[in-house]
């Protein structure tokens, strides 16, 4: 399975955010996108998801053209946004069956030791770390062939981070994943391709030193 994005361009008014950006994601890959705040990482993800209109974007899904507006309908990509997306008044145990009708999948989440502890709690009362972990777990268990995670490690305590990394790696047999996060060390541990968005372009990154060269990290 392959998702190929090309010619992605976005202007906010006259200000160019990025221009002619291309990216390919295959099953078994974790593509990391780094970049400073406001450089357009989340904007690019929203454009791929069809949630934000760009000035231009071409998407090929297994070599066939697909409109961004079809991505949600066809359930090709699942998306973890930066902000919490779960209704605050629902309990954890009530959300799981909304997302998964299959008992097997429900159990996979219910019997996660972290989730078992919070299953009777409404999401509005969870700590930010607990909430983020639950959201990542939900998105990860969905059947979509591709997954985009915008800051999945944000607010997670180390033990939760390790669980998320294990989980993401375990999904690679049947998913392709895009991650953006400022916790570059955690991302580098699991990513297969690394990119940096800088001055409206995507650059390939091999090592942490490359991030320093582009001014994302201090030398």
């Amino acid at each position, binding site marked *: 399975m392959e998702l190929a994005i090309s010619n992605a361009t976005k202007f906010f008014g006259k200000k160019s955010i990025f221009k002619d950006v291309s990216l390919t994601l295959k099953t078994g890959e974790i593509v990391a996108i780094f970049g400073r705040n406001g450089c357009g990482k989340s904007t690019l993800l929203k454009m791929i*998801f069809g*949630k934000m209109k760009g000035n231009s974007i071409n998407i090929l899904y297994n070599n066939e053209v697909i409109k961004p507006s079809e991505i*949600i309908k066809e359930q090709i990509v699942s998306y973890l946004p930066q*902000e919490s*997306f*779960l*209704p605050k008044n629902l309990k954890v145990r009530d959300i799981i069956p909304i997302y998964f009708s299959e008992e097997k999948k429900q159990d996979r989440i219910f019997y996660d030791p972290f989730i078992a502890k919070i299953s009777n709690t409404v999401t509005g009362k969870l700590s930010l770390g607990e909430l983020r972990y639950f959201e990542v777990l939900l998105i990860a268990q969905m059947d979509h062939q591709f997954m985009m995670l915008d800051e999945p490690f944000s607010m997670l305590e180390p033990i939760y981070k390790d669980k998320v990394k294990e989980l993401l790696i375990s999904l690679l047999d049947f998913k392709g994943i895009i991650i953006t996060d400022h916790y570059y060390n955690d991302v580098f541990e699991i990513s297969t391709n690394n990119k940096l968005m800088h001055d409206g372009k995507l650059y390939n990154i091999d090592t942490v030193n490359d991030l320093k060269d582009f001014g994302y990290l201090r030398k």
Partner: protein
Amino acid sequence: MAFTAVCASFSNIIWAMLVFVFLGIFIGFWSFQILHKSKWYFYHNLGLTKLKLFKTSFFINLLVAIPLAFVATVLYILF
């Protein structure tokens, strides 16, 4: 619903139902967009677009409003 209740208190139940079905849905979507913008992703990840949610909400509102308006009219005529 709250908006419909306000309308009902200023006019009658039939007008309130019409407002509920045809105007209420726009107000509901607009409020959701303002107050719970990030929560759209809850539905999008399930394959539900805004348009699909709008259509579904409209038909549910219609299904609720028609019998309610009918009952209200009958009660109005009788009493």
